[in-house]
């Protein structure tokens, strides 16, 4: 990216993840949006585009938000892209700026999931009168549970098991230890939905959901919102030195879908599109995995985190188990992964996740992460993946502007 078309995050915010029985998605989204504006030192008057996502909601979240935070008549986009919804909303705002339609935009992701059960499971009931073939497989009864599983814990369990089949070493205990790490990390994150450490034994003895994923190894359904203000480099340079100093450079913004692979429609292939997105992102940013000071990756299940060490090239091909067992992805290791607590402990309000993980990285790059600060962090990567599939990767860099204000 040349300096003339560089993109920056000017302001960003996430709500505490958890339960908000008295607030709806519009309240939560508005809270994050107004806080992001305040963080960036701008108002809705400065914003030229709004992209918002609320995957499980009824739609029109962008317009409903405008009614709460400011109806300025700007183009508003409602975005849905599974668990990559937040990252996709951010990219929509970035693309509008790069296209020259405006110089500042806002992306919001919000979800209310507290108390929601299993995601992805259909549980379609048997026909009452007679068997009747339906759908693209001509199925006379639900396929979920009879021909494999549609539920997310089971799907991602197989993703991890398949990796183990290919490379070995991926035992139940290894997956549980990954979860132990993320739950431990969350103790330092006051915005996480769950902030309690769990021992390996506790995690392994939690109720089994889909072997090898116990409950503690699954992403936590919760409520939450996150919002970001993005700005062009040219506009940023007209703002205050303090705004320039706290701005975070978006060195790469990539979205991929899954290319055809044998078996990709039998078990989702979350690997190929992530590898491709990572390769594109590293090339776009001109950085290598070695340059990353921290990574927030999509640990929707402990089994998913393992394969993404490999997909994001944090380790040699096939080396994810060794990488993890070396201690590298712990907060005090050489390549901290999910210091926020990850989806397993921080929580996973779907559409918010793809912006909340960027907030986490920005927090460290700005040196504002408090107790869990990765000292001297200069470059970070945020990754999300949504099934069907969509993968969003952003590489972020600490500002070198406004040094005089530091």
């Amino acid at each position, binding site marked *: 990216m040349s300096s003339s078309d560089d993109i920056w995050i000017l302001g960003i915010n996430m709500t505490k993840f958890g339960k908000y029985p008295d607030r709806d998605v519009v309240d939560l989204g508005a809270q994050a949006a107004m806080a992001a504006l305040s963080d960036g030192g701008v108002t809705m008057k400065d914003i030229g585009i709004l992209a918002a996502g609320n995957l499980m909601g009824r739609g029109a979240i962008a317009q409903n938000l405008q009614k709460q935070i400011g109806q300025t008549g700007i183009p508003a986009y409602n975005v849905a892209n599974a668990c990559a919804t937040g990252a996709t909303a951010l990219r929509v705002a970035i693309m509008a700026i790069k296209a020259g339609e405006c110089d500042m935009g806002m992306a919001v992701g919000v979800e209310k999931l507290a108390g929601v059960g299993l995601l992805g499971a259909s549980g379609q009931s048997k026909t009452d009168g007679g068997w009747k073939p339906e759908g693209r497989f001509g199925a006379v009864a639900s396929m979920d549970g009879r021909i494999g599983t549609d539920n997310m*814990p089971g799907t991602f369990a197989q993703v991890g098991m398949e990796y183990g089949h290919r490379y070995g070493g991926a035992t139940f205990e290894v997956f549980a230890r990954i979860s132990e790490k993320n739950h431990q990390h969350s103790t330092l994150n006051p915005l996480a939905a769950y902030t309690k450490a769990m021992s390996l034994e506790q995690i392994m003895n939690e109720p089994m959901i889909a072997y090898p994923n116990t409950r503690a190894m699954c992403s936590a359904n919760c409520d939450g919102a996150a919002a970001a203000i993005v700005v062009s480099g040219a506009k940023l340079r007209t703002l205050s030195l303090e705004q320039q100093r706290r701005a975070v450079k978006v060195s790469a913004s990539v979205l991929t879908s899954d290319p055809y692979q044998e078996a990709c429609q039998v078990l989702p292939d979350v690997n190929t599109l992530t590898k491709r997105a990572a390769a594109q992102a590293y090339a776009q940013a001109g950085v290598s995995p070695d340059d990353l000071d921290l990574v927030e990756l999509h640990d929707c299940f402990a089994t998913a985190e393992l394969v993404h060490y490999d997909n994001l090239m944090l380790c040699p091909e096939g080396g994810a188990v060794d990488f993890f067992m070396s201690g590298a992805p712990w907060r005090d290791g050489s390549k901290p992964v999910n210091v926020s607590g990850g989806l397993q402990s921080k929580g996973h309000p779907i559409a918010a996740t793809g912006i909340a993980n960027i907030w986490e990285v920005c927090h460290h790059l700005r040196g504002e992460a408090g107790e869990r600060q990765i000292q001297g962090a200069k470059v970070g990567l945020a990754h999300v993946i949504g099934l069907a599939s969509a993968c969003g990767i952003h590489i972020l860099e600490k500002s070198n502007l406004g040094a005089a204000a530091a």
Partner: protein
Amino acid sequence: MGRGKPARAAHHHSRIAAAYNLDRWTLNDWLRGGATRHNMEVTATIPHVDYLVLGDDPHLTANECTSCGARFFDRRNACANCFANDFVRVRIASEGEVRAFTIVTFAATGVPVPFVAAVVDCGGTSVRGNLVNVEASPEHVHLGMKVRLVTTSLGTDLHGVEAIGFGFEPTPQSTPFGDPS
């Protein structure tokens, strides 16, 4: 699906066949009248999914792209791999090896648990299915285990039609490995 492919012509031989998606064997069985129960009730069968072929030799089929060979279990408009739009119905090997599995112990309402969900490599084609006739525990299921296709009953509807599904069971060590096709 490819135009003019005869593989599933049996499905259109009668209104009954059309209504129940019966394969030729089942239809003939019904026409022989050898399977009647009670008065008007008929014991006929219908496959759980249209890519399961019943009869003396139950097996799975797939829509194979005639251009690149990619295989799909559901109906297709064009090939996801090469965009060609001509397909032929092919038989899938009935024996294979477990490439990935999970033991689901918590599922949607109405789905009996525990069950073993798996991806089985059947002669180079990945197939999704449950492992059956094996204890649903990590001690009894392992990656790489050899399995073979079996049919299972999903129950009988009010018209006396029994839906037949499929799963994969462990292949006994003594059974010669090979694709019967």
